[in-house]
């Protein structure tokens, strides 16, 4: 694993093609949970955790079962790569369910604050997107886990930035028709434009 391989995975995932701001995936929790900085931190860490584990699980499953047709055993010659998305969704859903139960037990406050957005991570396209990207780029299991973790970090960074801006906007006198989601979308748009500055950073 040379530096040339590692760089696009780490810096690429966090800054250059950030999962939210460049690839525009997972925008619904991005807009939904960024009202308060504390809940944004909670959500960011939850999504990073889920993305790391799900990237690991999905890439293991991918390489074992789906990447190439079966070579041994009774199912010889069976190529299941078409079932990739289905398997990924099932894995991610159950992982999130387990994380939700653990969080309800251990950090009640965060569970209350995240509310509907925690189960929403199951259908969160950022998590599924990371898994799909790993599969299509055919990275090794370790690399795709790192990629999952880093894009989770990218998601958390973008969410943190966005939540702190929205908390500051709480105190400004935004005209009534722009309050709420519209100002959030405009701010996210400007942030995405700024992140395009990193284009070409990683060859």
């Amino acid at each position, binding site marked *: 694993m040379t530096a040339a391989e590692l760089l696009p995975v780490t810096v690429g995932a966090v800054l250059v093609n950030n999962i939210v701001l460049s690839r525009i995936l997972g925008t619904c929790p991005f807009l939904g949970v960024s009202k308060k900085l504390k809940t944004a931190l909670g959500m960011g860490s939850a999504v990073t955790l889920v993305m790391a584990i799900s990237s690991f699980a999905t890439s293991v*499953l991918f390489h074992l079962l789906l990447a190439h047709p079966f070579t041994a055993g009774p199912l010889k010659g069976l190529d299941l790569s078409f079932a990739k998305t289905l398997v990924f969704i099932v894995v991610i859903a*159950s992982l999130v369910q387990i994380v939700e*139960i*653990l969080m*309800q037990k251990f950090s009640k406050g965060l569970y209350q604050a995240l509310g509907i957005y925690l189960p929403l991570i199951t259908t969160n396209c950022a998590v599924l997107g990371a898994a799909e990207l790993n599969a299509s780029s055919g990275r090794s299991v370790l690399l795709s886990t790192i990629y999952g973790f880093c894009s989770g970090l990218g998601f958390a960074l973008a969410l943190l930035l966005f939540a702190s801006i929205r908390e500051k906007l709480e105190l400004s006198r935004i005209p009534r028709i722009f309050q709420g989601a519209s100002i959030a979308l405009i701010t996210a748009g400007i942030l995405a434009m700024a992140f395009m500055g990193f284009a070409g950073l990683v060859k």
Partner: protein
Amino acid sequence: MSMLLAAGLVVGAIGLVLGCAIGLAVLFFSVKSDDRIEKIASLLPGANCGGCGFAGCGDFARAIVEENADPSKCVACTAESAARIGEVLGRAVAAREKMVAVVYCSGDQFHAVRCAEYNGLSDCRAAASYAGGGKGCRYGCVGMGTCARNCPFGAIEVRNGRAVVHPELCTGCGKCVSLCPRKLIHLVPADSKAHIYCNSLEKGAVKRKLCNAGCLGCKKCVRAFPDLFIATGGLVRAVNPAALDKTMLEKISCPVHVLHLVEEDFPCTGCEKGSGEKADGKGEEK
């Protein structure tokens, strides 16, 4: 073994394994919660106005279920939603008499005299300690709209420097009553027809100098209908505003027109007494 069957089997196996993992997690870590709270919270108006004395509708719903607080304390919810809450709880809910807020002052910028130019925050509570934003009468409505801004139902409007409550919009949550620094806003039964729009306890002569729309305490109305009006200091208060009607008012014919019908409460376009300056004085219009 056809392709489809194999695929189904493999994915099924993965689903089974993960299902068991979830089952185990539920077994060890589950936490029980009561779902009636959400149901009641959705029935409440959700305006978080605080009329029930709790922090908001969610808090009130929790109190209804856990501390069985009385649902009729919610002033803003309609009769049939109160009945539906009763069904969820399984106990009868007493119907509430509908109350409406009213501002007991008719001294807008055309009637009330200004004693100085005010330059500072356009907020009643802040201006109250600066001689009411330069207004002569120290019982009168400051007219900078703190009640109008904070009314969760948008029922209060400031017109010509005086707050006016629209009875049809007002649900009687009472938030404005505690906000007004001059304690001008009172909750009255919804069907009241006329009031005496003044709150100043000063003597008539003093009021005459500060505002020509104030009640002079001439007690004409008390003499006409002794059981419906009582006089306290320089002011007369209508005891049972619901019993009044147009014919009675003509019979009393209040000299200063401070006793008038609720519909006529909207201020007249202007007469000579007030100095006509805007509420914020000479400072640049904010």
